[in-house]
C-alpha cells in the first residue's frame, strides 16, 4: 500500500464506521507486459460523488471495466456495496450502473424501446411500472420529448443523456460513469451535475471520470488522481493539490512606492523567481509553504515598504495534471 493509499484508507476510516461503497484492494490489470493498473487500493464511502482523474493511459478505463465485471483483473479484490465483484458477478451487476466512454446506443431501437428493454432485463416490475420508471429517467435527463425518436437519430449529447437515463433505470447503488460529460452542452452538464448530486443524496455512490477537470472538481465531493496505473493523490480538490506537492504560485504585491527596493529585497529570497515590476506592482513566482509566504509579506512590511494589496494565483488543477501527463512523456 502506498502512502497515498494509506491516506485514502485513513480518510475513509475518519468518515465513520459505515462499510465503504467501493473497496478496491491490490488491484492489478496487465496487458502482456504492460501494467495498466498497478496494485491499486482505494476506498470510497457511500453517498460520495468520487472523481477519478488522470491522463490517457492512466488506468482509469481498466479500473472501471474491472469494477463493472467486464474484465477480470490479474489479481485484486473489488467489493461494491458488500458484494465481491469477482466472486458474485450476477449480484454485483444488479447494483452497478455503468455508462461507458462514448456511450453507444443500438441503431435498431427507439429511445423508449431501449429503456424498456433494460428495464425489463433488470426486472423492474410490470409493463406500466417500467414505462413509468423510463419516463422518470427521461425527465431526469431532460429528454422526455425524444422518447419516440430512433436512438440513431440522436445527437452526441442526447445519446449521452439517453445512456445516462438507461444507467439510472434500476436505481443502482454504485454508479460508474466514464467521461459522462463529454458531448454535453453547458446546460446539460449542469443538469448532469445536479442529477448526480441528487443521486448521491439518496445514498448511491457515484464514481466518475472526466477529462474536463474543472467539471469534475465542481461535481465531486472528493477525487483521486491516477497515473501509470498508480494512485498519486486522493481527497478533496485542495487536499489533492497539496498531496501532489504543488506549492507553486504567482504573487502580486501592489505597493505605494519603493518598488525597486522591494524588488531588490525579494530577489534575494530563495523561494522567489521570475520577478518583474509593472508600474506600482511587483509580480513574481513563489514556490514555498503558506508560512514562508506569510514571512515574505511580513519581511516587506518590516522593511518599511507600504503594501496596499497582496494577491496570489495558484496553479490550476489542469496545470497539475498537464505536468503529470508531461512527466509521462519524459524518458
Amino acid at each position: 500500500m502506498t502512502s497515498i493509499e494509506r491516506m485514502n484508507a485513513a480518510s475513509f476510516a475518519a468518515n465513520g464506521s459505515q462499510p465503504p461503497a467501493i473497496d478496491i484492494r491490490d488491484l492489478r490489470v496487465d496487458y502482456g507486459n504492460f501494467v495498466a493498473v498497478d496494485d491499486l487500493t482505494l476506498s470510497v464511502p457511500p453517498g460520495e460523488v468520487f472523481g477519478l482523474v488522470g491522463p490517457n493511459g492512466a488506468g482509469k478505463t481498466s479500473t472501471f471495466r474491472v469494477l463493472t465485471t467486464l474484465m477480470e483483473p490479474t489479481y485484486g479484490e473489488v467489493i461494491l456495496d458488500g458484494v465481491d465483484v469477482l466472486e458474485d458477478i450476477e449480484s454485483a451487476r444488479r447494483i452497478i450502473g455503468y455508462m461507458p466512454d462514448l456511450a453507444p446506443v443500438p441503431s435498431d431501437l427507439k429511445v423508449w424501446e431501449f429503456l424498456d428493454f433494460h428495464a425489463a432485463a433488470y426486472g423492474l416490475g410490470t409493463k406500466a411500472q417500467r414505462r413509468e420508471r423510463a419516463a422518470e429517467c427521461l425527465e431526469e435527463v431532460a429528454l422526455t420529448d425524444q422518447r419516440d425518436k430512433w436512438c440513431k437519430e440522436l445527437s452526441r449529447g442526447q445519446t449521452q443523456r439517453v445512456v445516462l437515463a438507461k444507467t439510472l433505470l434500476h436505481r443502482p447503488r454504485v454508479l460508474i460513469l466514464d467521461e459522462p460529460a463529454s458531448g454535453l452542452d453547458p446546460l446539460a452538464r449542469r443538469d448532469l451535475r445536479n442529477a448526480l448530486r441528487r443521486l448521491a443524496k439518496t445514498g448511491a455512490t457515484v464514481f466518475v471520470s472526466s477529462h474536463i477537470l474543472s467539471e469534475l472538481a465542481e461535481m465531486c465531493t472528493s477525487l483521486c488522481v491516477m497515473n501509470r496505473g498508480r494512485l498519486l493523490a486522493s481527497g478533496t480538490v485542495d487536499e489533492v493539490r497539496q498531496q501532489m506537492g504543488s506549492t507553486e504560485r504567482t504573487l502580486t504585491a501592489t505597493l505605494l512606492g519603493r518598488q525597486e527596493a522591494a524588488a531588490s529585497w525579494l530577489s534575494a529570497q530563495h523561494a522567489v523567481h521570475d520577478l518583474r515590476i509593472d508600474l506600482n506592482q511587483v509580480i513574481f513566482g513563489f514556490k514555498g509553504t503558506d508560512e514562508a509566504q506569510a514571512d515574505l509579506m511580513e519581511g516587506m512590511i518590516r522593511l518599511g515598504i507600504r503594501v496596499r494589496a497582496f494577491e496570489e494565483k495558484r496553479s490550476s488543477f489542469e496545470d497539475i495534471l498537464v505536468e503529470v501527463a508531461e512527466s509521462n512523456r519524459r524518458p
Partner: protein
Amino acid sequence: MNEHPPSRHPAWKIWSNPVFRRYCRSRLRPQGLGVSLLVTVLIAGFIVAMVRAVGLQNQMDPSDAARSVIIPLLFLQGIILFVLGTAQAAGGMTAERDEGVIDYQRLIPMSPLSKVLGYLFGLPVREYVMFLTTLPFTGWALWTGGVAWQVWLPLYAVVFTSALTYHFTGLLTGTVAKNRRWAFLASIGLVFCLYTAVPQMAKFGLVFFKYLTVTPVVEESLPGLLSKTVGAAVESIQKLAPTVKFFGLDFSETVFTVFSQGGLILTFVVMLCRKWRRAESHLLGKTWATGFFIWIQTLLLGNALPLIDTGSLFPSRGFTRMVRMMNQRPPDPMEAVAMSGIYGLITLALIFILVAIVTPSTDSQLRGWRRARKQGDTSLSFFSDAATGFWAAIVMALAGAGGWFLFTRGLVESRWFPGHEVPIGVFGLFAAVLLSAGVGYQALLEAKGGRHVTLTAIFVGVVPVMIGAVMAVSENLAPIAVWLIGMSPLSLPVYASSSLLSLAELPEGLSRAMPRAFQFWLFVAILTCCWLVKNLWVARRAMARKVLDAPAAEP
C-alpha cells in the same frame, strides 16, 4: 436503495426473455417484416402452383402432385432457416459488438444461458416467422398428399434441431469473429462445411458426420414424401440399408440425428456461456474439450464398427448395393487403407482445433502466474485457462490413437480381408504420429504463439504438399514427391496407414519410398516435438521464475 426484487429470467421462459423480446420488437417491425413475408409467400406460392401444375400435366393424381411439392418447399425452408437465419445470428451478434452495446448486455443481471437463448431465438426471429408463413403451403401438401404424421413429424423435428445447430454455429462465429463481414462469411462457410464437406466424410467410414445434417432424416422420410410410385422404389432400396447402428444398438435416423446434434448443441451452449460469463475465457475448458474429443471418437467408432461386417461402410460396397450387385465384389484393400488414413487425418485435425481452443496465450499465462504469486501459490491451478494445454493434447492424442487403432483393426481384421491383422505395435506408431504432430503443435502454440504456428503450418504443413503434388504428376519424380509430402505432419496419418498395414498395395516405386519416408519423417517429427516440448518447459519455467521471484513491488 434498489427497491426492486432481484430480476430472475429463467432460461426456459423464452417468451419473457428480455433479449428475445428486444429482437422481436426490432426485427418484427411491420415495414421490414411485411416485405420479407410478401417475398416468402410469393416464392412458396409459386413453387406450389408450378410444381403441382407440372405434376398434373404429367398425369400424376392430385395426391401425388401435392406430395411432389413438399421437397421443393423443404428446400425453401432450408434456405430461410439454415442460411438466412444463421447469417442473421452471426451478423447480429457481431453488430452488437461493432456498435458497442454488447457491454450493456453483459451487465444485465441475467444468467449466461438466458442471454444465449435470448440471442439464439431472438436474432433470427424474422426468419422463424418467414418459415412459419411457408407452413400453410406445406400443411396443404401434407394433407392433400395424405402424408402420415409419423413421416413429417420426425422430419420437422430434425429440421428444427438442425436449425438450432446452425444458429448456434452462427452465434459462436459472431461472438468470436472480429467484424461483421467476417462473421457473415465465416458463418456461411461453416454452414456450407457442416452441410456439404463434413458429411462427405461419411463416405470414407466416418458415418457419424452425416448425422450433423438433416439429410439422413430426409432420406428416411423420402418414401412418404415422394409420389407413391417413386416413393415405393426408394423404400425398396432403403430396405437394403440398415438402420443407424451404434455399437450393438439400433436407432432410427431421427433419434440418432437428434442425439448427435444434441451433443454438438450442448458443446456450443457451454462455449457461449463461458464467453458470456467472462469475455476472456477460452471457448472450452480443458476437461470439456478432452471429453468432447473422446465423445466424437466414441460416436465415430460406434457408428462405423457395426457396418464393417455388412460391408456398407466401404464406399465401393455402398455403390454396388445401390445397383443391386450386393455380395458380388469384396471391398478393395486400398479402400480400407485410405479409410484408415482419413480417420487418422480427421482425428489429427480435431486435435489441432481443440488444442488451439485450450492453449493459453502468453498474456493469459502471465496473468495466471501473477495471480498465483499474489495468492501465495507456486503453481497454476491444473484446469485453469492459464494452465498449460500440454496434458490435454497428450490425452487427446492417446485417445485419438486408440480410436484410430480400433477402427483400423476393425477394417483390416474383418471378414473381407482374411489373413490380415493389425499387431498391437501399430497402436504405438499411431500414438507416435498423433503425439508428435499434436503435442508438437501444442508446444509451439503455447511457447511461441499463433503467428509462429501459422508460418509453420504454411511452410511445413502446406507448401511441401503443394510442391510434392505438382512433382507427383511426373511418374519419375513420384518417389521424391513422396519424401517431400512426408515432411508435412498432415501426411503422417496417411503415410502411417499406407506403410504399416499389410493390406497396402502401393505401386512399386512408392512401396519402397513411402515406408522409408514415413519412418524418417516420423523420427524427425518426434525429435522436433521433443525439442518443442523442451522449449515450452524452459519458457514456462522462465516465465514462472520471472514472476514468482520478482521483487514485491514489481511482480
